[in-house]
């Protein structure tokens, strides 16, 4: 078999050393009655050439954003990935190493993570960031668990704006299902969380409030006002952000957010059908937060020669030491994705991030104007937005994605599956990759999709 090293002769030599006649003897501890007495029902082994052919065929059965201009958003975006990101991430010293327990053998990974933590602090304006989480949805859940601990309101209430990505909300619900706290969704009929509505919902039971800006519809929330309101009742304000947007927008930390969470996919990580992605989590640099931070942390120290170096630190928060008392059960991070995000942000720098955000903003607004001009279509909400917006459409939206794909686009996320009241709406996202010509062509394509029998 392809990856087994020892030849039959070497196996014999090893068995001889062990004094056993066959490998079978090494499995004596497995009771005969539970042994599998038949081959697994799996397809037969394939050589690289054969499997290459089959895997390429499977890939070709998909229509990818490499072929079709992609206007889909909803938490995953087709941003451009500079070639340096792939080049660095394909260094096998990074991708074939594991958790950097042995600091002396892992300074590469450790320093990368320390730099990632710093970049996330620079990006968010907060004082501490962990070594990354799986992705944004579970990141929100981990942030809420932190907030429950920080406030001590373990059986309190968690408020989530309806404008937070519905799947983040669902993951959060799953995580909290068996815990004593309660979870309440705050309606946002106009596509944003009205600070007055939040004010009305807050109480001294409020442990955490989760908002997202730009939110699921692409709109900007009044984060600073919301955070201030949460603080007045002693709660923790958790804000989900779009890292690309921070080239232009005020940072969560500067808006008074306590814990900032984001999906880091836009930072040089391929769309990849939804994963692996990168859960960003940063928070206030305060002991109450730090003590409850989930996931790994890398810290700076010195070695026995006095050299600056890096180690995994504050591990007493973690499961392998605290077991059932750990702040979370997480025992990995998304190391390789954190590396990609680090290289991406470093390649862009402040100016590149600003220009990228500016392009997204301007192209999205151009697209919104063009598409709202298509007969029958209109912008559903009147709120400031960043790179994503919602259109109302005269008729059902379920077939739109397929119709648009047949005209050459990956576009239109129908919102009815999450918001029955928005069954006639869909959202579009526009990144810096999209050209004016593509946007214009999308508008033409949409015009052709109009259902014939509606006014």
């Amino acid at each position, binding site marked *: *078999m392809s*990856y087994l*090293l020892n030849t039959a002769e070497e*196996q014999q030599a090893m068995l001889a*050393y062990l004094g*056993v006649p066959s490998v079978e003897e*090494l499995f004596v501890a*497995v009771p005969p009655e*539970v042994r599998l007495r038949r081959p*697994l029902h*799996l397809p037969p*082994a394939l050589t690289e050439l054969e*499997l290459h052919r089959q895997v390429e065929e499977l890939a070709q059965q*998909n229509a990818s*954003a490499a072929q079709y201009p992609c206007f*889909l958003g909803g938490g995953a975006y087709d941003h451009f990935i500079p070639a340096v990101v792939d080049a660095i991430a394909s260094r096998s010293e990074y991708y074939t190493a594991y*958790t950097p327990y*042995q600091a*002396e053998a*892992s*300074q590469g990974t450790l320093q990368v993570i*320390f730099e990632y933590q*710093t970049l996330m602090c620079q*990006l968010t304006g907060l*004082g501490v960031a962990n*070594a990354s989480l799986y992705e944004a*949805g*579970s990141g929100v859940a981990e942030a809420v668990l932190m907030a429950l601990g920080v406030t001590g309101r373990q059986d309190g209430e968690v408020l989530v704006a309806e404008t937070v990505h519905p799947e983040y909300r*669902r*993951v959060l619900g*799953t995580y909290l*299902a068996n815990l004593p706290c309660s979870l309440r969704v705050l309606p946002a009929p106009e596509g944003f969380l009205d600070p007055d509505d939040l004010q009305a919902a807050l109480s001294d039971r409020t442990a955490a409030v989760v908002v997202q800006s730009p939110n699921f519809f692409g709109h900007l929330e009044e984060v600073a006002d919301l955070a201030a309101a949460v603080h007045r009742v002693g709660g923790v304000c958790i804000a989900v952000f779009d890292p690309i947007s921070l080239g232009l*927008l005020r940072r969560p930390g500067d808006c008074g957010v306590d814990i900032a969470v984001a999906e880091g996919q836009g930072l040089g990580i391929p769309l*990849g059908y*939804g*994963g692996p992605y990168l859960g960003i989590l940063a928070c206030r640099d305060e*002991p109450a937060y730090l003590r409850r931070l989930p996931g790994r942390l890398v*810290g700076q*120290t010195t*070695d026995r020669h006095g050299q600056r*170096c*890096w180690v995994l630190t*504050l591990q*007493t*928060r*973690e*499961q392998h*030491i605290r077991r*059932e*008392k750990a702040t979370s059960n997480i*025992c990995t991070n*998304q190391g390789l994705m954190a*590396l990609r995000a680090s290289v991406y942000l470093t390649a862009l720098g*402040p100016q*590149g*991030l600003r220009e990228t955000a*500016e392009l997204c903003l301007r192209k999205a607004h151009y697209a919104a104007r063009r598409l709202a001009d298509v007969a029958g279509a209109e912008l559903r909400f009147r709120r*400031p937005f960043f790179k994503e917006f919602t259109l109302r459409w005269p008729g059902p939206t379920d077939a739109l994605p397929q119709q648009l794909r047949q005209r050459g686009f*990956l576009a239109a996320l129908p919102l009815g599956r999450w918001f029955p009241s928005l069954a006639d709406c869909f959202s579009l996202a526009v990144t810096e990759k999209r050209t*004016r010509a593509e946007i214009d062509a999308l508008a033409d394509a949409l015009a052709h999709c109009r259902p014939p029998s509606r006014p």
Partner: protein
Amino acid sequence: AATELIFELSQPGRRCHRLPACDVPPESPEPDLPERYRAAAPPPLPEVGEVDLVRHYVNLSTRNMSIDTHFYPLGSCTMKYNPKRHERWAALSGFAALHPYQDEESVQGILRLLYELQEFLGEISGLPAVSLQPAAGAQGELTALLIAAAYFRDQGQTHRRKVLIPDSAHGTNPASATLAGFETVTVKSTPQGLVDLTDLRSKLGPDVAVFMITNPNTLGLFERQIRTITDWLHEAGALVYLDGANMNAILGITRPGDFGADMQHYNVHKTFTGPHGGGGPGSGPVAVRDFLAPYLPVPVVVREGERYRLDYHRPKSIGKMHTFYGNVGILLRGYCYIRTLGPDGLKQVSEQAVLNANYLRARVAQVLEVPHPGPCMHEFVASARKLLREKKVRAMDLAKRLLDFGIHAPTVYFPLVVPEALMIEPTETESKATLDAFADTLARIVQEDPDFLRAAPHTTPISRPDEVQAVKQPILRWQPSGASSSSPPAPAAPAAETPQVVPAAS
């Protein structure tokens, strides 16, 4: 220079990536973005040129040991060779450039792959209902426990609040149980390293929801009484959860479903060789018995004739563990691995992993105490207890000294039930020559001067970082002002006594 932080290379005005000019007409009549949302300046990211960036990260990479450069017998982590062909295939734009919200017609290829992988994993475990969604083993554990909770709630058995966990288990087990809202109860091990049946019996009762067992366990031993254990649990109305971290030992040999597990997770990044990525991404699918299938997270990939689709209509589902469908890129590598090996190949993987481990165990036993009787499965635990007693040389000292010989250290101080533990997992992709070199090196090291060992490693870029200082005065980010950090002192939790190095379960 490799140890300079990227921030220290920054030069105001220097640039790497540049963006095109904007090709759409300017905003009008009003600005697209009201002023109150705008930041005065972009975030203070580093400003470097492309050659700076590349040199920095390329040079940094060489300050790692990795499978591609060194033998990496890190117990419990299954550091096997990561095939290069997987990287090529995962990068195909027909996979890498798929948006998760594309219409199903446009993603039939990847849906088919994921569907087939669900089938494969169901067959390998003997637990036919599979969710690929958990992003890592620990999340797989949590998923399974949430499924158990939902099941018992559905059954009206909300009194089942306890989860039993052997003392040799990975720390993720109790942590996941707590997170899922259960209370944890520890079950002792026998001196032979197996579950203490008497202790287990005494803790079994109507309040037990789940027994979380790792089999083969973290000592590398197969629970000979596994059928008795699972029978007892089932008689008590509880579920058995298998921590699948050690599946590399039993592929095609025995199936968790056949020995009584009701649920398990996989570590695709271990057993099916997704690259470990310096700590992730992993992938932790769960497989469960049919009666638990309704509780799996949504969506599940289903097949209808020749078409595949994402099934969200599962009213009893626990919900979602991941925004989308899990770490598809890692799952894809696992799929390719299973298709490369086939049924015979997978069985040979386990046979060779076990042969390698036993051979190395026998060789190491000439040098160090190996406290539990063999044969072992795919890994084993040695103890430096005697060295500590006689020469004040600890397991950690041996681990560090191995680095000087270009060998990554084994896992040390885990499992907790073995003093001065060195947990060694060679995997099937290493040759006898590599194992011999390890054993020879170890034999040489234990003869070395204790002071020299306590100062090891001697050839690595750094040596013996001060971990206490890192905890007492945590510096968790670089700051422009200079050396000292404004980070607050560490949380009060106990620190100094804890082991420095411990394994990842997932």
